[in-house]
């Protein structure tokens, strides 16, 4: 019985850790941007805001799955990952948007953001490298 309780407690702890995953919003190292409001971030994720305030097109990179993606979608886009995917399909197939770069994992997001001026992406905070700059979300 004790084993079962410990197992459930461990699962609950793991679940909480996943839910509380630290997310880093990253931009190209050459970017002059240092911060973005939560409203602006939502607008970027939903394709309403396509330009940086300082000029230049925002080139968004999104993960295709995983706990970090789920968390960002829920907290910042107020949608599930599936709803976010469908939302963007609607934009693409009505001529209203260009699908964000879709990355399978943090490494792909980091690589894209590091190489693409104007890029914005998100990864687990622990994955951040010196090749990108972390953006503050206000």
């Amino acid at each position, binding site marked *: 019985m004790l084993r079962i309780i410990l197992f459930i407690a461990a699962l609950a702890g793991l679940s909480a850790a996943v839910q509380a995953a630290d997310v880093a919003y990253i931009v190209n190292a050459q970017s002059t941007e240092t911060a973005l409001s939560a409203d602006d971030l939502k607008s970027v994720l939903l394709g309403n805001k396509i*330009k940086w305030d300082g000029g230049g097109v925002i080139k968004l990179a999104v993960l295709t799955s995983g706990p970090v993606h789920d968390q960002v979608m829920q907290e910042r886009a107020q949608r599930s990952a599936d*709803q976010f995917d469908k939302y963007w399909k609607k934009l*693409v*197939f009505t*001529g*209203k948007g260009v*699908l964000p770069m879709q990355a399978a994992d943090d490494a792909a997001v980091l690589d894209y953001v590091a190489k693409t001026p*104007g890029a914005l992406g998100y990864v687990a905070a622990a994955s951040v490298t010196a090749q990108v700059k972390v953006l503050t979300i206000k």
Partner: protein
Amino acid sequence: MNKRKRFSALVRSLGIAACATSAAHAYELGGVAIHGSLSTTAAYSDKYNFLGSTDESFDFIQTEATVNATKRFDNGLKIAGQVYAYELAGYSAVTLDFGNVDYSFSQEFGLRLGRNKTPSGFYSEVQDLDQVRIFASLPLNFYPRVYRPFAVANDGISLYGNVGAGKAGSFDYQTFYGYVSRIDNQQPTMIGTNINELTPNMIAGGSLIWNVPVDGLRVGYSYFDLFGAAITTNAQTIPGLGTTSFSGGLGYTAQVASIEYTRGKWVAATEYKYTKTTTDLANDSALASGFVPARSIPNADAAEKDEIYFQLTYQATDKLGFGTYYAYSDYQKSTIDKDIALATSYAITPWWLIKGEVHFMDGIHEIGSAGDKNPGAKEEKWNYYVVKTTLSF
């Protein structure tokens, strides 16, 4: 199997085979993103031919293929175009669904020039987009497939934007003004409404969506006015007396109020639509004389229409979803149609969907919308079964 059906079957087979081998990913050529989809729909009815030879037989009533290309330049300018090819109720065409140049000056203000999708309700712009919904078809009478060419897109200008309203949420708006392309005389709508000729006409309107500061809730209103159309029609007089010619103008307005609420895996939606059709025909005396049945004149018996539906969907898993709706259409001068639908959708892979749905219909006002294929139809209650498969990339 006649020549047309053999050709359709061949196109379907080749298309599905081609997509199946390559559908998993979108393509990018020189910075141009390319997406597409292919779907085919079969239907069966226990009583009537509706959009095909469905009376007690399964018939492939619709095949659709969509390919779009989008490119955004570093200055923010975007160019996008989409080809939509379809076969519906025996009629086939390849159309430019949209093709526009788009520049967003700011989040609050953007401009599109070219062929733009016409918004009407929450779903008219995505009525061909199977990937985003559980149902194989939107509510049959609310978003009638045969009327698609009238108001799916316009050639002109569109202004759009997203305006923040602080604690009140935000608003998305679109306004548009443009031409509607000429409707082919052989298009199912033209056959169904007995119109011989319909010249290009203008359309103007807009939509406003309030993103309420409650997660998942949005409320919308849209309006458009189709005006300046000229029509000619040869209406059938009472049997044995031949036809009588009419010519004149046709106007059409549509207003839609929409609410959608998403919570977890559930999506609830309701929409109300009021439409008004006005005809200014030069041979009203023939109509008044009673020699011409009202139904044979385009919309003469449906000058005003109120429609509403309530829809609920549940995405049970990543692959499996269920949905139901109840739709009610009131054709104020003739009759009422009701439609209760149950649907399921299953994603075999992320790019391959299959769907099945059943409609329990009460009313037959729209069964002749693609031409009268049910002479003497009187039974109000009938069932309609639909299966559909869609591949996308």
